[in-house]
């Protein structure tokens, strides 16, 4: 692949990834405010989140100040994201594989960030000793990440195929996603083994991309890994593997959203309640013109008489 093609491919894939991810995130954000549907425990409830309590435990809660912890939800999510707490507590048999798989992803992402920093160091001619530390750490992260990720991906494919608890719910796309990500890890591991110093090789590759250097050349194992990885980056935002974005909303906007109605929300709610309803069941009495307020405040026959 010639230099310019690498640039188009890499920046194109990253650009499309960012555009689609942003579009899908905005699509979730722009969904209308929903009715409250919180679920304990809510960690931001200071002093109460520990046992699942909420501000509704206070006598005349509307007259009391709400004490919200900023740090508790972060700790909660950190345990959930990095230690897979939910799976550990509720599905222990799945934990080793899913932990290895996700940890593989996190380490590779961490390695990639270090590589970008190292590439900037190369460009800015930071002392070699500093660069070597970064490259050394990146190399270790890469090796462990590729190993854990490959193990997790292969293990999860086998578990999905063999476990009678999971098998009925498998789809082709589930297997394809695991295989695809598995290919990223395995090709990375192959490149690492083949190269004497994958971290340096990758940093120089990134440096040439950043500096728009047309003389980009890479070895076959690394180019195979980069191609598979960029294809995966192109594919990822179209799938439900972007649950790392969705999870923010399922937790913060639904489970933990216990915000009472306020003036700003009321304005939005009035707009939503003014929308026409077209449900067909007779008791709804909707005709496509009456709005939510009309149909929910219509008096029943007995009330009219009285």
């Amino acid at each position, binding site marked *: 692949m010639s230099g310019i093609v690498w640039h188009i491919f890499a920046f194109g894939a990253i650009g499309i990834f960012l555009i689609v991810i942003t579009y899908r995130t905005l699509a*979730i954000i722009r*969904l*209308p405010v*929903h*009715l*409250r*549907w*919180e*679920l*304990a*425990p*809510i960690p931001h409830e200071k002093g109460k989140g520990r*046992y*699942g*309590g909420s501000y*509704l*435990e206070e*006598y*005349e*809660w509307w007259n009391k100040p709400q004490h919200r912890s900023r740090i508790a939800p972060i700790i909660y999510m950190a345990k959930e994201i990095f230690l897979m*707490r*939910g*799976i550990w*507590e*509720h*599905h222990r048999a799945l934990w080793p594989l899913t932990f290895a798989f996700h940890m593989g992803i996190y380490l590779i992402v961490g390695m990639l960030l270090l590589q970008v920093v190292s590439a900037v160091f190369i460009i800015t001619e930071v002392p070699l000793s500093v660069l070597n530390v970064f490259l050394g750490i990146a190399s270790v992260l890469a090796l462990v990440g590729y190993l854990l990720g490959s193990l997790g991906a292969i293990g999860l494919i086998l578990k999905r195929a063999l476990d009678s608890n*999971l098998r*009925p*719910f498998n*789809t082709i*796309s*589930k297997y394809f996603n695991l295989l695809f990500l598995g290919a990223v890890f395995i090709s990375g591991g192959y490149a690492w083994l083949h190269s004497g110093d994958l971290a340096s090789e990758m940093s120089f590759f990134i440096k040439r991309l950043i500096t728009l250097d047309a003389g980009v050349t890479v070895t076959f194992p690394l180019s195979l890994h980069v191609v598979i990885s960029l294809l995966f980056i192109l594919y990822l935002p179209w799938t*439900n593997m972007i649950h790392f974005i*969705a*999870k923010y*909303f*399922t937790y913060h906007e*639904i489970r933990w959203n*216990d915000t*009472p*109605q306020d003036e700003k*929300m*009321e304005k939005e*709610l009035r707009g939503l*309640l003014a*929308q026409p*309803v*077209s*449900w*067909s*069941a007779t*008791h*709804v009495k909707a005709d496509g013109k009456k709005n939510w307020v009309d*149909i*929910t405040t219509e008096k*029943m*026959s*007995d*009330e009219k008489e*009285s």
Partner: protein
Amino acid sequence: MKKNLKLTDFSKDGDTQLTEINIDELIPLAPPYDKIEELPGFKRLTEDQRERLVCNLDGVVSSVLLKPKNKEEEKRYVEQFVSGLKKLLSRENNWTFLQPLLLSIDYCAQCQTCCDACPIYLASGKNDLYRPTYRSEIFRRLINKYVKPGGKLRAKLNRGDIELNWTTITRLYELSYRCNLCRRCAQSCPMGVDNALITRELRKLFSQELGWAPKELHEKGTVLQLEVGSPTGLKPHVAKDNFEFLDEDFTEATGIEVSTPWDKEGADILLIHSAGDIVSFPEGPISFSILCNAAGISWTLSSEVPGYDGVNYGVFYDDVQLAKVAIRHAQIAKKLKVKKIVMGECGHQHKAFMTVADRMLTGDLNIPRESVMTFLENLVFSGKIEFDPSKNDFPVTLHDPCNIVRNLGIVEPQRRILRYLCPQFREMTPHGVDNYCCGGGGGLSVMSDVNFTDWKVYVAGRMKFKQVLNAFGDQPGPEVKKYICAPCLNCKLQFRDILEYYGAREKSGIIYGGLAELIVNAMVDIKKPFIKWGER
């Protein structure tokens, strides 16, 4: 009967029953409840019922659906179902739950982590049909196929295409009432996916589009409540008459003046009981009259339709009905010019009125609403009433109503009362926000059509009964009287069915009741025991 169910089995074999409840496959109970032969048998459907009714799921009928007259009728319902799917995903018709629904539909990882959190799935001996994921995944595949662009093609490519036909929709309808909406599954989901919400949305589609809902929740539930005042059928003057009679009766029984104020404009508090308590468990509402009067509280009940019944079955199946009931309650409070509304001992009333409807009550309808738990805690520790905890010196355990505890996070106030007033209070395992549902959640406790009560008692309530027996495991015999404190009408109805069915009062000395009764029982001014052990 299929043992290991595939998702694709769901739309096949027309009228054939998909699975069956086998008593010997359910999780075992402690002695003396382990002898299946000594228990009343599971009521099986008769030939006549099988002939007339749609009963193609598990041999249980929760909500009567008559078989369609012809293929055209079947087709019409299937088309309506597709139309409902589209409305469920539209902003205009479903702004109320669009974001939670879409996120739960789109981001399930199919890890099955939620299954072992579900008391129904566990109690059933892990019957595939009762997995929280089973109905959700079928619903998800139908949404993806019929509503999303390119859905039909993707369904074909992706293996496991679900055919949409009369069998599929009728099984889905029935299966949507095999869930307590307790949300234990949602609590365990690492993604934050909520299968209980999906189930409720499914019920909503059937109700709001096809007009299908169990009669106990709809015709004899919200419709009756909005028309005459209460699903119990209690009209305003009858409710008042009942209370007057109860006031007199309990004045005589307790030796202290009991009176209940009605329609007192400008009172501080509007208390809204569940009318089911007035009818079935009157010592509950009367306890509030005793306590409020003893503490000198300015309060009132309302006799306006439906202000004397706080239940809101809409929260189980229908947003429109939910909103209608909640708005009426708020309008009544506004008219009475009260400072706040206090919930009765009713779990779903708490959830419907305090949180879910919070974003429906705009402007001056947004009147402060308080839980009965904090209200009672404040009253007990106010120092206005003298208590003698030794009067409650018997084993007491607490059932946590899911809608008050897991859904609203009101965990400790009721415990502080019990620790103070009940020397032998003990917790169930697990408890608090990790509790198991009584088995009557999601509206199931009031449903009793055909043989549904048998399913509720045998399957849905089994984990809870097991927990209760464990909590009292140190004194299992009937010689020691024990009390399950269940501060929720629907939970009490379910406990009534469970304890009667297993004969637990006779065999183990277990009765059930509310929280307010325990508080009144400990009052120094009440000379005779308020709790009647022989009646529950």
